[in-house]
Each structure stands twice: as structure tokens, then as C-alpha cells.
């Protein structure tokens, strides 16, 4: 199989949905003296090597990777470098 | 690939050892040289690596099994002359398998035995705390699988640097203790929780010597049907590698940086750090238990240090046979691994099974059903040789007998008594603040926030949990498991450890750790106790480190023998040293007892108002290494000692009192002494308590604050209903005990010395301090 495409899929909480990991990281950073941090939001990044097209990657997000109730997804296409 | 060894000189031999990171000394390199000279050929890299693995400290315990020169004479095999000697001399019929296999096994109920093993995973946790701790848990669980055991509980004891250690003082390359502790705890929780094994007991301690070198002790308890504990491999049996794929994980750590491997270094960067996959191990566990239940295997072992090289070699020696291994059959993570890398890789989540030919197909099917890869990679042969092939070519051939005829290490031991400044301060008028300070000090303060991140009751067997009392927030002395659905019999798990004492005298440190582990076990009703030792020490090539080690080992013999508690397994980790110096000599003693009926278990929280409170045991002026001295800025010298013969009578009597139902609550006295034990019991029961120090049985003349905070061993605080006063006292006739107070209607802890009030605090204030609110 010769795969030419790499997609980066970023899953984050929808605005307004509580992000406990972001909040506790914020607390942790402030405890270390980084007081000027205003907000931390967490996200998960999947790097998918596949020749599926964008629409199908979106389908993956809808069906498994993102939770439709609380999460948004963002897909970025990254073309793989030619190996030549 | 051959390595030129024949005809080269000593310097060149050492150069090879160093360059290839074999950690073999000159004597060992010479022995290998002459072995191959006699064969008339140079060794292959596979063969050389096999010796390096098999002869490493990690695998053969060179120090404990070698020779030690002391002022008093030569010790031949410290392990046999101290720790294992206890077990041999006691010769308990309930010890089923000791010091032989991956874990010690004792009888439990009928055919069911209990296996217990505790390991350390210190260096990996210093480098990658999450993965290091997680794979530590994964590794010790495989030790239990390696005796055909079903893991049922974990115990974890952690030692970190002070959490407020200044950043600017941190040695270069060292991670901050806060970072290390956070991720070690997450790693332990993740592995145990994911595998569905409850973490039921543990401790967390802090000391500056652990800044560069944290200690991570991971223990697992398992059940083994004795009739299915099979170790009878024979020529013709197939070697089946089970579990995850093999990668470059953990091969000599940093070998990749060497020029030879440089081209591939980038590709494999990051794989040296292992994260662990608990779900893979859970699936392996299912498969192994099924193979065991159907009795399809003839032997089993885990793949730990040294990987396949150690596992195959040790099994061959055990069954007095040889083996053929085809390395190209091993499923790999990356295609370009060389044969020696496959042979010594320490990739996680792998086990080696020996399977009689006729059962092979069924075994492979069992693992396939669990989505676990299982691959036949070789077989046992009659001839006493390891024959290692790669794509049809013989890449290594070693006599098993020579492989296990390692060179004896010789160490020097010098013990020099240390004197620390004596504590000099007068007794404060009010000791309430001292108590609150001790309650909120790092080693004593509540660990609830950590305990709750571990699932401590999955399997629904944990009947005495780590937190007790009305609000479920007081520290239990030990955990009790009820592992069989059709029996009330219980397993009791506890530990003892105190690095403060190690700074003064390793002998009494070890003695205290044993006493503490036993009394914690007894405090909830445990009996017929077996022990495990885990030594974490500095470099054994330094005589002063060895001096302490010998003393600690001698204490293990003296004290455990008197308590009649055999050691069943143990481990030593002896290079816990960095440029910042060695770690404080630390011995963890883990204890496993039984409870004939878990319904008779006793917890530490006060139960009723207006009941009597007794102290069992004698109080000495022993504040060296105490928390009281510590909060006043001293270490002192008067480390607590142990009179094990007297202590044994006390615990036997206490167990009898518990069985008669005379004990409402019981708590052991350890860090912080009587004051902290009383405070914790009051917090647990949310019941007030009044104590008169004048009534405490002491030896010698003690200041009131010393009576209150002395950390003398072998003591318990127990609550007895007024109506049982006579029965209790009659039973304890002949034992040192005294009635020192009562539980009250109030919500305060009050401590008097005659009529003078030394401590007066509400339980709420005690609780706040203990929960870190000071």
C-alpha cells in the first residue's frame, strides 16, 4: 500500500462544555507561578495516514473520533513528503 | 556477528565490555575469554550478550549471593546466611514455594495458595515517571502470572523527594519531585485500574535523598491452585512466546547513541522509553489462566530483565536440558532488529510458555480467542546447550552449565557508627501545635487524594479498605481481602518502612520495618504472617554502603526469626546512587497474613463513646528519627529498637483478644507515636478521647512530650468496651499493657500529664491538619 495522505484530526471540547483537564492544567501552571495564563483548553490530536478523502475522514470523526454531544473536530490535510 | 576476544589483553577486554555496555568486569570477561579459547573460536554478539544479561546484578544478585569481607570475617552468601536462613530454620509447612520462582507462594485455603511478589522500578521511574511506574506494576503482575497465579491485588510504596524542593537546587537533568510523584501515581493507577486489579495498600514517603532517585515499589498478590502449579518442562516441549511484539525497548538504555547504530537511531528514538499496555496484559492474563485451568502448559515464566536470553536460559537450567530458539520467528515491532537485540529485548507484556507438543494447537487457539499473539519460537532439547538460530544460521551456542557458573562477586563491608547532634530543646507548655504539625507533615498527612485515584475495590474482594471511619477518611493499618466467594477466610496485606531510621542505623531500621509490617497486619487481625524484603541501597561496591546492608540483613534474620515469620520472596536494588549521593538505606518489608474469618477484622476508627482505651507495649525514650524531633529540626540518635520475643507474646495475646471479640478498634503506633495514633483513631470514629500520660507504661525516666511522641516499636492502642474490662485484663495478664484513657461524649482529643493539659484540640482541627490544611 502506498499512502500519500496524512490527516491531522484535532478533537476539542465545544465552547461552553467544561474541560476538566484544561482547568486542572491551568491550576497546575498557576501553582508553578505562571500567573498570567488566562485559560487552558485541552485537545486530542490523531494523525491518520490514509488515502481516504476528506469527506470520509469527516465521517470517521462523526462516527467514532468525536463525541457529537460535547466535542468539535477539525481536520487538517498534511501531504506526505515525496520519498524521492 | 563475531566479537574478537581470543588473544586480546585485559585493557581490550574491558574496552569491549564498556563499549558494548555489557557491565562485565575484568574477571568475568577473562572467564568468557578462556571459555571460548577452549572451544577454539570467538563468541558471537548473541553469546556475549547472553553472558552480560545472565551475569548481571539484576539477574543473579551478585552482591547478596557473593562473598562479603567484613572486620568480623567473611560472609559467604548473605542471602542464605540471613534472609533465606530464617525460612529454612523455621521450616513452616504452609510455605509452598519460597525463593525459587518468580514469587513466593504460601498455603491459603484447600488447594488454593497465595502468591506474593514485590519489585522495584526506580531508575525507569526517574527517567519517565508515568511509563516507569506503569511498567513496574505490569512487571510485577507478570511475576504472578509467571507462577500460574491470578493477580487479585496490588500494593505500592513510593518514595519521592520533598514536593517543595527548590527548583534552583535541582541537579541538572533531574525532574522535579512534584513532576515525578504526579506521573508515578498516574502510571500506577492507570495500569492497575485498567487491568482491574485493585490497589489495596501502600505508603508514600518523602526524603531529600530521593530527589534524584525516587523509589517505586510495586507488589502484586495472586491466587494459585497448587495442583495446577506446573513446572515440569522436558525435551520436546515447545517454547511459545505470548503477548506483545518485540522491539528495541529497554536494550541497554542508551546503546542507540553508539556509532554502529547511529543510522537507525532516529527511527527508534523514543522506543527506549516504555509506556506499557495494561489491556494487552489483561488479555494475556485471560489466556494464561485458561491454559492453566485446562492444564495445557508444562512451565511458564515472565520476560523481564534480559528478555528471552534470561527466560530461556533459566528454564533450561531448571529442567536440566537445553533449547533451540529460532529468533526469526519472534514477531517484531521494527523489521531491522539484529538477532542479539531480539534475544535480549525487554519489551513489556510478553510471557514464555512451555507447551507439550500435543497441546500446542489448543494453546494457540486460546490466545487467538483473546486476540493475543502466540508464537512457537523453539523447543527444549536433551543436550545441555542453548542453540540460537536466526534464519537457519546458528548465531549462538552456549553450555547451560557454564552460563550459570557465574563468577562470585567479592565485596567489602565497613560499618561506621554515625553520630548525629542530640536534640536540645525544652518541652513546650502546650503540645497541640506540635501534634498538628506532625499530622500535616508529608510522611503522615492523609494520602486520600492519591488513594481515591486507585480503584481499590474492583473484584469486590476488598473487605477492609485503605480508608476507614465515619467519613471514610482515616488510615487503615492493613488491607483485608476475601478472595473466595464461598469462604470467609481472608488475606491481610501490610507494609513497614521508615527511611528516617535508616539515617541512624540500618540494623534498627530493618528491625523496625519488620515490626511495623507485622504489627500493621496484626492490628486488623492478621496472623501466620510471611514477609517479603526489598532493599534499596547505594552502590554496593562502596564498603560503607555494604556495611549498612550487612547490618540490615542481619536484623532481618534476628528479628524475623524471633517473630517466627519466614521470608518467602524478596528483591534488592543496589545502585540507587547518583552524583548527589546514595539514597537513604531503605528497606521495605511487606507482610502477608491470613484471617480465618474476615467478619472478625478490626478497624482503627474509635467505635463507641465511654469505652476504655489501652496501650499495649512498653514506651522507651526512643525519639531518634522521630517525627517529633523532625519538626524541631533534629534527627537524634535514640532510634527505636525491637524486643521481638516480648513483642511476639503481645501480638499473640492481641489476636486472642480479637477472636474473642474484645477489641472494638485497634491502631498501631508508628510515626508520631501515641499522639498521632490517638488523633487518627479519633478522626476515624469522630469520637472524643481523653488520655493520661502518667498511666503509660514506660522504661526509664521520660519527659511527657517524649512519652507522647516516642516511636518505640511493638505498641498498639486499643479500644475496649467497659463491660469487657475484666476479660481483657485477664487475657493480657503478663503482657505490658495499661489503661490510659476513655472515649468521651465531647468532640475533643485531650491529653493530660497528671492534671496538666498538654493537648487540647477539636477533632475537626485534627482532621483539617491531617488533611493538609495547616
Amino acid at each position, binding site marked *: 500500500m502506498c499512502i500519500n495522505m496524512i490527516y491531522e484530526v484535532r478533537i476539542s471540547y*465545544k465552547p*461552553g*462544555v*467544561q474541560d*476538566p*483537564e484544561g*482547568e*486542572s492544567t491551568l491550576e497546575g501552571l498557576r501553582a508553578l507561578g505562571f500567573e498570567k495564563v488566562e485559560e487552558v483548553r485541552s485537545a486530542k490530536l490523531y494523525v491518520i495516514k490514509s488515502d481516504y478523502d476528506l469527506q470520509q475522514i469527516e465521517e470517521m470523526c462523526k*462516527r*467514532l*473520533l468525536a*463525541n*457529537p*454531544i*460535547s466535542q468539535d473536530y477539525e481536520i487538517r490535510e498534511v501531504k506526505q513528503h515525496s520519498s524521492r | 556477528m563475531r566479537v574478537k576476544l581470543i588473544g586480546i589483553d585485559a585493557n581490550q577486554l574491558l574496552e569491549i565490555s564498556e563499549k558494548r555496555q555489557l557491565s562485565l568486569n575484568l574477571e568475568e570477561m577473562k572467564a568468557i575469554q578462556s571459555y571460548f579459547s577452549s572451544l577454539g573460536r570467538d563468541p558471537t554478539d548473541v553469546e556475549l550478550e547472553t553472558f552480560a544479561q545472565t551475569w548481571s546484578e539484576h539477574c543473579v544478585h551478585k552482591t547478596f549471593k557473593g562473598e562479603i569481607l567484613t572486620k568480623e570475617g567473611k560472609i559467604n552468601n548473605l542471602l542464605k546466611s540471613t534472609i533465606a536462613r530464617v525460612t529454612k530454620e523455621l521450616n513452616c509447612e504452609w510455605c509452598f514455594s519460597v525463593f525459587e520462582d518468580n514469587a513466593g507462594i504460601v498455603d491459603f485455603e484447600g488447594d488454593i495458595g497465595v502468591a506474593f511478589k514485590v519489585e522495584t522500578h526506580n531508575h525507569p521511574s526517574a527517567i519517565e515517571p508515568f511509563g516507569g511506574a506503569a511498567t513496574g506494576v505490569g512487571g510485577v503482575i507478570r511475576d504472578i502470572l509467571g507462577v500460574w497465579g491470578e493477580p487479585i491485588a496490588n500494593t505500592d510504596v513510593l518514595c519521592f523527594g520533598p514536593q517543595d524542593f527548590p527548583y534552583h537546587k535541582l541537579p541538572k537533568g533531574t525532574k522535579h519531585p512534584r513532576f515525578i510523584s504526579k506521573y508515578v501515581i498516574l502510571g500506577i*493507577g492507570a495500569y492497575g*485500574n*485498567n*487491568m*482491574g486489579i485493585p490497589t489495596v495498600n501502600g505508603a508514600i514517603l518523602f526524603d531529600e535523598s530521593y530527589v534524584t532517585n525516587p523509589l517505586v515499589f510495586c507488589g502484586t498478590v495472586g491466587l494459585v491452585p497448587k495442583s495446577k502449579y506446573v513446572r515440569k518442562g522436558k525435551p520436546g516441549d515447545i517454547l511459545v512466546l505470548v503477548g506483545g511484539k518485540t522491539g528495541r525497548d529497554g536494550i541497554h538504555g542508551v546503546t542507540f547513541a553508539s556509532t554502529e547504530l547511529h543510522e537507525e537511531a532516529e527511527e527508534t528514538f523514543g522506543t527506549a522509553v516504555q509506556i506499557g*499496555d*495494561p*489491556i494487552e496484559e*489483561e*488479555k494475556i492474563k485471560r489466556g494464561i489462566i485458561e491454559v492453566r485451568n485446562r492444564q495445557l502448559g508444562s512451565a511458564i515464566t515472565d520476560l523481564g530483565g534480559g528478555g528471552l536470553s534470561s527466560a530461556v536460559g533459566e528454564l533450561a537450567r531448571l529442567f536440566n536440558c537445553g533449547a533451540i530458539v529460532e529468533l526469526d520467528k519472534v514477531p517484531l515491532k521494527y523489521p531491522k532488529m539484529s538477532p542479539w537485540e531480539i534475544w535480549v529485548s525487554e519489551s513489556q507484556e510478553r510471557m514464555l510458555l512451555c507447551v507439550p507438543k500435543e497441546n500446542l494447537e489448543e494453546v494457540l487457539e486460546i490466545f487467538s*480467542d*483473546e*486476540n493475543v499473539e502466540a508464537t512457537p519460537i523453539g523447543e527444549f532439547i536433551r543436550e545441555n546447550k542453548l542453540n540460537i538460530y536466526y534464519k537457519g544460521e546458528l548465531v549462538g551456542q552456549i553450555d547451560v552449565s557454564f552460563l550459570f557458573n557465574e563468577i562470585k562477586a567479592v565485596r567489602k563491608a565497613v560499618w561506621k557508627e554515625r553520630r548525629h547532634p542530640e536534640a536540645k530543646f525544652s518541652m513546650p507548655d502546650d503540645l497541640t501545635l506540635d501534634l498538628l504539625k506532625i499530622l500535616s507533615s508529608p510522611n503522615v498527612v492523609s494520602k486520600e487524594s492519591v488513594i*481515591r*485515584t*486507585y*480503584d*481499590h*475495590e*474492583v*473484584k*469486590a*474482594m*476488598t*473487605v*477492609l*479498605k485503605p*480508608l*476507614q*471511619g*465515619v467519613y*471514610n477518611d482515616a488510615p487503615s493499618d492493613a488491607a483485608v481481602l*476475601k478472595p473466595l*466467594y464461598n469462604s470467609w477466610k481472608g488475606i491481610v496485606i501490610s507494609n513497614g518502612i521508615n527511611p528516617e531510621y535508616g539515617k541512624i542505623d540500618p540494623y534498627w531500621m530493618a528491625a523496625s520495618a519488620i515490626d511495623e509490617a507485622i504489627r500493621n497486619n496484626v492490628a486488623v487481625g492478621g496472623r501466620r504472617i510471611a514477609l517479603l524484603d526489598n532493599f534499596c541501597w547505594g552502590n554496593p561496591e562502596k564498603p560503607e554502603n555494604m556495611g549498612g546492608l550487612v547490618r540490615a540483613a542481619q536484623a532481618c534474620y534476628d528479628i524475623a526469626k524471633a517473630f517466627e515469620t519466614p521470608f518467602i520472596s524478596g528483591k534488592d536494588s543496589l545502585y540507587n546512587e547518583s552524583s548527589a549521593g546514595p539514597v537513604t538505606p531503605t528497606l521495605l518489608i511487606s507482610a502477608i497474613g491470613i484471617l480465618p474469618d*474476615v*467478619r472478625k*477484622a*478490626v*478497624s482503627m*476508627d474509635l*467505635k463507641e463513646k465511654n469505652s476504655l482505651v489501652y496501650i499495649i507495649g512498653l514506651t522507651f525514650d526512643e525519639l531518634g528519627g522521630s517525627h517529633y524531633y523532625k519538626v524541631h529540626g533534629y534527627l537524634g540518635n535514640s532510634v527505636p529498637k525491637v524486643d521481638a520475643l516480648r513483642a511476639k507474646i503481645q501480638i499473640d495475646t492481641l489476636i486472642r483478644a480479637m477472636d474473642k471479640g474484645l477489641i472494638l478498634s485497634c491502631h498501631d503506633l508508628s510515626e508520631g507515636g501515641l499522639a498521632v495514633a490517638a488523633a487518627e483513631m479519633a478522626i476515624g*470514629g469522630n469520637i472524643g478521647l481523653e488520655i493520661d500520660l502518667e498511666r503509660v507504661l514506660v522504661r526509664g525516666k521520660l519527659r511527657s512530650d517524649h512519652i507522647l511522641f516516642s516511636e518505640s516499636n511493638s505498641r498498639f492502642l486499643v479500644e475496649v468496651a467497659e463491660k469487657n474490662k475484666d476479660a481483657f485484663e485477664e487475657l493480657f495478664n503478663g503482657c505490658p499493657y495499661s489503661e490510659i484513657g476513655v472515649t468521651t461524649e465531647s468532640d475533643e482529643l485531650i491529653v493530660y500529664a497528671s492534671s496538666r493539659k498538654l493537648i487540647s484540640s477539636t477533632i475537626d482541627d485534627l482532621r483539617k491538619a491531617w488533611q493538609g490544611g495547616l
Partner: protein
Amino acid sequence: MRDIKFCVLRGPGTNCDIETKVSLEHFRCTAEILHINKLIKGERSLLDYHGLVIPGGFSYGDRVRSGAIMGKTLMKKIGNEIKKFVEEEKPILGICNGFQVLVEAGMLPGFKEEQEVALGTNSSSRFEDRWVYLVNENRGNCIFTRNLKKVLRMPVAHGEGKLILPLGLEEEYLDRLKRNDQIVFRYSYEDGTPALGKYPHNPNGSIFDIAGICDPSGLILGMMPHPERAFHWITYPDWTRKGLKGYGDGYVIFENMVKYVKDNF
């Protein structure tokens, strides 16, 4: 009476299956621990069983989200079998990870045939094991909670148990759950007063303190707390001070499940 048989379904990483099986078998029925692979491969059929329990654990390592892979896999591979099972009015119980699986599979709350709610990361952002009080608010729809007392005590042990409803539609969803009598357990104080989001009584920040819900038919129950760990008083955290009182609060839930099958099949 015909032999009653339950399926305790496990996937890779499920780990509360044995104690769940033991809890069911206490009521003289058969509970078989079955690997999901056997259903996927068609070696076994769900329809051979009278009831289904999806126990706790970390199915597929909780990767992506707790319960997601197992939930989606079930629907994709044996969706029709499950539909048939539900049509036959056989009971389904999801505990902890099993609840997450049912939600990810779109079987709970069961308004539509797709995922409508979520079990998100605890507000504390960490895994927590603690005993909680639950108030039983079901008015009779849920077959698992009939004759159950008002306030129960059980442990929770999870990192992702906070019920989340679609943003902006919370009130609408809550109304619907209440109207359909689908709310079963809410986190509460000892006296049964709902926790109103107060930690640690509500251990995960779940909306409306919800700890367990059923589908509109009352035959599918999902709950975060572990009834199998509260089956007998000996596993309660403070039995040494309160005494042993026989069976615990989880007992009746299993009893009801078995009884329902005995009465109807």
C-alpha cells in the same frame, strides 16, 4: 421452569465480569461470560440469552472515549441482533463502562437510534473510587428498581462518568427524561436529598446529579455506580462500625433482573 441464562458480555479490557456473573448466579440462574468476538464471528448469538449485562472495566483501553469502540463495534457488527433482543423485551444492564457502551451505542437514553448524550470526563478530571448515596427517583418504569428502597449506597470508580446533554437542549432533554420516567438514580446525601452538583456527593459533576438512566421501555438500565460491589455488606466501607446487615443495596437490582426474566420468559 426453563433454564434462565444471562450473557455477561466482555470485550478486551472488560474487568468486572466475574463479580457480575457471581452476583447474577446467586439467584439460581446461569450467567455466562462471553467474549464479544464470539458474537462478531457469529459463533454465538445474543438471542440464546434471556438478559444481557455489560459489566465495568476499560473496554478497548478506553481509547478514543470510554466505551466508544465497544459501543460502535456492537452496533456495527451485531446491531440487528441487539435490535431483535430489545424487541423481544429482554432486559439489558450496563454498569460503569457498560453504561458508557450503551450510551455510545445510542441505546440510552434511546430517544433516537443514535448517540444523543455523553459520559464525559469527571469535573475533578481524575479517576475516583468512592462510595456515594443514590436516591431512587424512578416512578415504576424501570424494571430493575421495583421494590427498591429510596436511598442506596454503592461505590463509583471511574474517570468519565459525567452525564452531558446536548448544549442548549439540556432542559428539553431533562424534561423528556423526567416525563418518560427514565431517570433512575441521582447522587444524593444520606437522607436522599439530591447533591445538587456538590462534590464529592456528586462525584463527577453529572447534570441533575444523574447516576443512572433507563430507556423509555424501562428494560435497559445504565448506571455508573457498581451494584456488584455492594452485593453484600462485607464489602461496605464501614461495616466494622455499622455491623453486618446481610445483603447490600446492589442485591435487589440483580434480583429484579432475574425475577423479570423468570416472570416473563
